[in-house]
């Protein structure tokens, strides 16, 4: 096994200055992600997982340390090169979907290809295919406000997939969905992973991390655990509520 990892994070540190004070949002984080892995990054709010997600998503640059994805040294890239990297290598799925409200599902899914300079005809074909793959073939011309939350997130996933990125980066993708719909989305991720997509899922829910083959736990900007999802999830999890708690409340 000599193939280079898809993602290689080494000693990644990100400082913020808040007023006079320096905040160490990320403090020497290191890990690798191989192609085809499904990894959860779990931690409570303030643990640094959003900062890590922004760095891995090339939306932000580290204060120190290095980050490689698919052979690109991200910390060395210019603003335009970062934009191109996001466009080519990363498919984002956000908690709040982040769809353009005035555009149809199809136009939303086409958007990454617009910035890649793909011809009108080709991007239409690719977008249709991506929407079909998430089961929305019959909702293509609907606007986001005409879709349910689950459908919206599917559109967002189709948008993330359409450019065949090397990494799907999902930030609390079920956070705005009811549990049944969230379950559907997680199953969709599982399916995508089985088809070879590399997925990094950022979440504060240990329950979700437990579903992933691997999880990385962050706390105070540091990696505190890295291993099989079920194990890592149970580590810092709050004690399970006693079975009768609901009835007593």
């Amino acid at each position, binding site marked *: 096994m000599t193939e280079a990892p898809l993602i290689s994070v080494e000693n990644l540190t990100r400082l913020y200055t808040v007023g006079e004070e320096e905040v160490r949002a990320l403090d020497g984080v290191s890990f690798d992600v191989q192609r085809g892995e499904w990894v959860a990054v779990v931690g409570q709010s303030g643990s640094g997982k959003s900062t890590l997600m922004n760095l891995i998503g090339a*939306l932000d640059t580290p204060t120190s340390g290095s980050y490689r994805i698919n052979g690109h040294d991200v910390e060395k890239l210019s603003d*335009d090169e970062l*934009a191109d990297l996001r466009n080519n290598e990363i498919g984002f799925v956000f908690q709040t979907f982040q769809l353009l409200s005035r555009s149809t599902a199809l136009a939303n899914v086409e958007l990454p290809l617009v*910035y890649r300079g793909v011809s009108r005809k080709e991007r239409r074909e690719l977008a249709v295919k991506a929407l079909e793959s998430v089961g929305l073939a019959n909702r293509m011309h609907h606007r986001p406000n005409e879709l349910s939350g689950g459908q919206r997130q599917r559109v967002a996933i189709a*948008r993330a997939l359409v450019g065949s990125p090397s990494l799907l980066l999902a930030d609390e993708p079920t956070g705005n969905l009811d549990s049944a719909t969230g379950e559907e989305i997680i199953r969709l991720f599982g399916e995508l992973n089985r088809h070879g997509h590399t997925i990094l899922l950022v979440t504060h829910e240990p329950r979700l991390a437990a579903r992933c083959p691997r999880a990385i736990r962050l706390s105070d900007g540091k990696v505190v655990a890295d291993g099989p999802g079920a194990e890592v999830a149970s580590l810092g999890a709050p004690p399970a509520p006693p079975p009768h708690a609901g009835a007593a409340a």
Partner: protein
Amino acid sequence: MKAFLDNLELALSTLRGNPLRSLLTLLGIVIGAATVVGMMALVEGFRISVNKDLEWFGAGGFQVQKIPMTFGHVDRAKYAKRPDLTREQGEALRALPHVRYVSIEAYHQGRPERIATRERATQPNVSVGGGLPDYAPANAVNIADGRFFTDTDIAMGGRVAVIGADVADVLFPGGHAVGKEIRIRSAPFTVVGVAERRGSTLGGSRDAWVTIPLDTYYQVLGRVTDHHIAIQATAAEDFQKAQDEVIARLRAIRGLRGIQENDFELFSNETMTGTFNQFAAVVAAATFAVTLLALVVGGIGVMNIMLVSVAERTREIGVRMALGARRRRILSQFVIEAVTLSLLGGILGVLIGAGGAIMAREIWDIPSSVPAWAVLLSLLSASGAGVVFGIYPAIRASRLDPVEAMRTE
């Protein structure tokens, strides 16, 4: 190009999303462009109609005067010192080979007269001139009724007059002016001819005139030493030769030599048209400058709406950046949106302005003609305003941080 089309499509969809707001914002640009096009159409229509009417002389005709004829202010004092154009100098031009008619005319400039019959009188606005039989051919005067006076009329005492159509209308509303008597300063004259109507130029009628024989004019209205000399060349193509001969002869008679400037002025239809067109161009330029201000004010409206638009769409901008839009792409998106917005306003304004101009012409008979350059210039200025006033909001948009931007609601 593809990127441009995508941006254009985006801009149009934004406008469709907010049609009323877009329209209100564009009102300034619309009004600006409509004013530019409307005003320019009026100036241009006026210019064309004047040019059409500016047939002061017949083909191959021109006029010599001591004082230049221009539109607007003339410094008369400056030219008054020049020696008069005498009747003898005029007579001397008759011998020139390419000169056919020489009309020596006397006027008291700026002193119109009241013409009367026993029953009626005109307003004191009739221009009375003294002339010779050559007056008619040299001034392209056509007679509608009767005839122009002849040498025989002059030999028989010269109490004859040819009157313009306006004078005939007022004094002889039933027609039949020929053979009737009119009075100029209570001196009686017999009407021998009524001229064809010439219409009006620059808002003034060209039919309020009476011409009487030159010697009679001296007797009745006072001696005049400076004359207007209207000349008709032997043929239209001899026009230039005739002018050269007249200039050479007058310079010789008036004792000018070498590099001394002419102390007289030549006018033809061409020089009159040229002078008027210069005047019209100045009016057009001034009008344009003023109306352009409206476009600039409209541009401020565009800037305002673009700033609002950027603020409203902060999250969208963040999403676009996250999905791989480079900053320049965001910049051009908003600039193109501003330009599209302004250009649409410009087009709307041009349509309104041109429509108004055409309506003015068709309904109220006001001469107007929409000049292509005014349309082009309005659209260019509107787009220019879009770029100038769209660039700042666009820069603001392109500098947003994608993470921060996506967090806004």
